């Protein structure tokens, strides 16, 4: 059995699966249920100054795809709408009763040092393990100068992080918004402000759907809709990229990362960890299926690690990071061709029509003795993978490497690169 225990910026948890700051972590009741189910830690739903915010009715939108519910999910809910006192008392009690679980508290107050100092002093009394600065929330709070309104300005991130580091010794995570053009700028600002770690991604500005009868964005609140924060399986690729970028950025100085965004299975988690994350945070998957899904996350990751011979999370953490490079570092001599396994082929013709209509006309459609036959023309195939992706049969289309003795050659070294011709 592999050791899944995690020590992330000094915060210990029995496994790297934390619940993200969100509705599932708003109350003692939910958090206790989560811990009973086996979650390694939680980031308590964001606390703010009293009086608490007021939420609207109708809060979630969803992107259903091909009969699959919740491929993507969004919300227009604000931070906790319960009094600060109530939350703090519950946090203290839960931490006391569940000392082995990570208890991180998410915070969001106006962008003034005094406000931060005040709330930090109160939060420290709970015995929590860490704080997470919510610089990511893209809706509602940002209109009040908080959340992503701070997260989109690197200078503010650095400033607030510095205040927090000045006023508390508890490990401080900075939660980053993806609603920016380059994730490295806010990440570096957090590093420069002294953050112990970063968590990302927060949700993405989004409209999940437009109600064509009401003519308003979903979720509709009495005839109108606002943009919400997008999350769930659909955002995982965006989150992986941002996590990977920070992990490989020298200026981010290997800052610990808590990966967030569409994590639903142990495999998703392993991918985030392989790109450099130390823990992962989950919300949508729990909201879709309940807390029980953590069982497979723990079990599945454990079995996979055993199979691969990894003894701890650190054994493979960042293992894919070194292979995450810029395009210019890819091998121009690498050559693959699609190969259709005729025994597995079910004759759906999707590979042909995809290639014919939208790519390189490299798959022929024939009738041989009345039977449909689809064949790759190697000379035309550029190895784009499109046919493999559209093929509904597992392993029917494989991409086969063309054997040659050419060396690894990047575009920078490629004689076809115009820049190289000039110097020649």
């Amino acid at each position, binding site marked *: 059995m592999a050791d899944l225990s995690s020590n992330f910026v000094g915060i210990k948890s029995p496994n790297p699966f934390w619940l993200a700051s969100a509705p599932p972590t708003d109350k003692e009741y939910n958090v206790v249920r989560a811990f009973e189910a086996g979650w390694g830690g939680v980031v308590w739903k964001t606390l703010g100054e009293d009086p608490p915010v007021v939420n609207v009715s109708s809060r979630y939108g969803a992107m259903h795809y091909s009969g699959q519910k919740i491929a993507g999910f969004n919300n227009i809910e604000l931070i906790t709408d319960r009094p600060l006192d109530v939350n703090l008392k519950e946090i203290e009690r839960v931490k006391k009763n569940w000392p082995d679980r990570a208890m991180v508290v998410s915070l969001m107050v106006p962008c003034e040092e005094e406000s931060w100092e005040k709330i930090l002093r109160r939060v420290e009394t709970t015995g929590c393990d860490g704080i997470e600065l919510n610089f990511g929330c893209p809706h509602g709070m940002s209109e009040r100068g908080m959340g992503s309104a701070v997260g989109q300005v690197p200078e503010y991130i650095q400033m607030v992080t510095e205040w927090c580091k000045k006023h508390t010794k508890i490990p401080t995570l900075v939660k980053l918004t993806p609603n920016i053009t380059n994730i490295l700028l806010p990440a570096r600002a957090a590093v420069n402000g002294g953050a112990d770690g970063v968590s990302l991604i927060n949700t993405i500005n989004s409209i999940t759907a437009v109600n064509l009868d009401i003519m308003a964005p979903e979720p509709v609140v009495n005839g109108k809709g606002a943009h919400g924060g997008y999350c769930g399986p659909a955002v995982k690729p965006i989150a992986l990229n941002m996590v990977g970028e920070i992990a490989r950025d020298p200026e981010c100085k290997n800052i610990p990362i808590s990966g967030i965004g569409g994590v639903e299975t142990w495999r998703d988690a392993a991918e985030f960890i392989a790109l450099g994350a130390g823990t992962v945070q989950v919300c949508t998957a729990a909201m879709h299926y309940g807390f029980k899904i953590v069982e497979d996350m723990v079990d599945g990751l454990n079995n996979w690690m055993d199979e691969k011979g990894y003894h701890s999370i650190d054994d493979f953490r960042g293992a894919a990071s070194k292979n995450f490079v810029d395009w210019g570092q890819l091998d121009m001599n690498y050559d693959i061709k699609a190969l259709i396994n005729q025994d597995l082929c*079910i*004759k759906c013709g999707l590979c042909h029509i995809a290639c014919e209509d939208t790519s390189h006309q490299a798959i022929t*459609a024939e009738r041989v003795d009345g039977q449909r036959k689809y064949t790759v023309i190697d000379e035309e195939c550029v190895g784009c993978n499109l046919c493999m992706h559209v093929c509904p049969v597992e392993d029917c289309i494989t991409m086969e490497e063309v054997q040659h003795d050419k060396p690894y050659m990047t575009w920078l070294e490629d004689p076809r690169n115009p820049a190289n011709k000039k110097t020649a």
Partner: protein
Amino acid sequence: MTDSSHAAKTPIEMPPVPETPDIAAGRLSPEEYKENFSDLLPALDRRRAIIEADRCYFCYDAPCIEACPTGIDIPSFIHKISTDNVKGAATDILTANIMGGACARVCPVEELCEDACVRNTQNSQPVKIGRLQRYAVDGLMQRDDKQIFTRKEPTGKKIAVIGAGPAGMSCAHRLATLGHNVVVFDAKTKAGGLNEYGIAAYKLPDDFAQKEIDYILSIGGIEMRYEHALGEKIKLEELRRDFDAVFVGTGLSGVNKLGLDGEDLKGVENAVDYIAALRQAKDLSKLPVGRKIVVIGGGNTAIDIAIQTKRLGAEDVTLVYRRGEDDMNATWHEQELAQNNGVVIKHWAQPKRLIGWNGHVRQIEFEYTQLDGSGKLTGTGDTFTLLVDTVFKAIGQHFVPSPVQEGGRDLLTITPKGKIAVNEDRQTSLDNVWAGGDCIEGQDLTVAAVEDGKRAAIAIDRALSA
């Protein structure tokens, strides 16, 4: 085999046979009748339909289209279901097959589109094309804007269609959309042909056949004349004279006989007649049915009569077919359905003797059969006897040529198999007469008949506008 050869050598005393047959109505409770003759397969609701539609791969050069006699663009209509474009889906279906609603319910999809579905080769279930087709067409029928067809400018041409079954009505509808006026003649009092009189009740419940006819007629330009049988009230030569073209879709009116003594005993009935009576019965509890039924035949009619009599409350229904399971015209799906309904299917036996009492059949003797060295079916000499209240003959139907004869002479060419000869366009040997449906050679299927009517209409239109 051992038992029967033993029986053949040593005659056994027959058990005493009750003298009067047990044939009675009202064997079931009202709830049971309702349950037994309601929809065989319930309609898909929106969510199930969308999930099923999403299973379709949207194949290029899709094999299912090729397998559909009417060539419905199946991936296209299924895709439209998945996007909630139900009207578009139904339009795809009905423009290729105006009886897409009936076909969705009665087609042997397991031998047509669903058999061709590429999903089968993945060791998986095919996409439920038939049920999706029903979802789309039913969805359209519930809309206020369900009329998706318009008629072209009137051509002033008039076409006679003989037979208001799937072939005739399909032909009439297409001709009407092309701007022609049509008069449809039918021997019966209702349109629909086998959809109305022949298909098993639980496949087309809720008067579906008439609703479909109403939809077809709503295009306009189609006049119906019932109780006009060809060769009686109307004559082919007169119609040829009075109309610009004639389409013959009269189906098969002859029922094949067993050729056994005692065939005229009471209780020896044609399956098609009983099914027609069942389909027209206003109250099934008034329809008498025997306790012990024997069905002879291996096609879908045999299956249909067997299941329906079982569902009417018959105690023992035995279907006897002279060859093996794979030789049966009824699809595996139909055979399975019969067995699931408690019908006993006996293969490799042929009727030998009908034994009556007081003019009513009481027993039927069968002889086991086998294939001899040359592959010919022969009797083994071994026999068995079944006690029976009703024997249903379902060994096929044939085309009766007399209506298309005059003075004992065929007006149009008849094939060696005894059906009307047609070319690709379904044109007969007469230049202004086309034919389709069961009275020509081909698959005896509703969907094939619809295609015949459609093709003939297109050809008639071409001929008349030339």
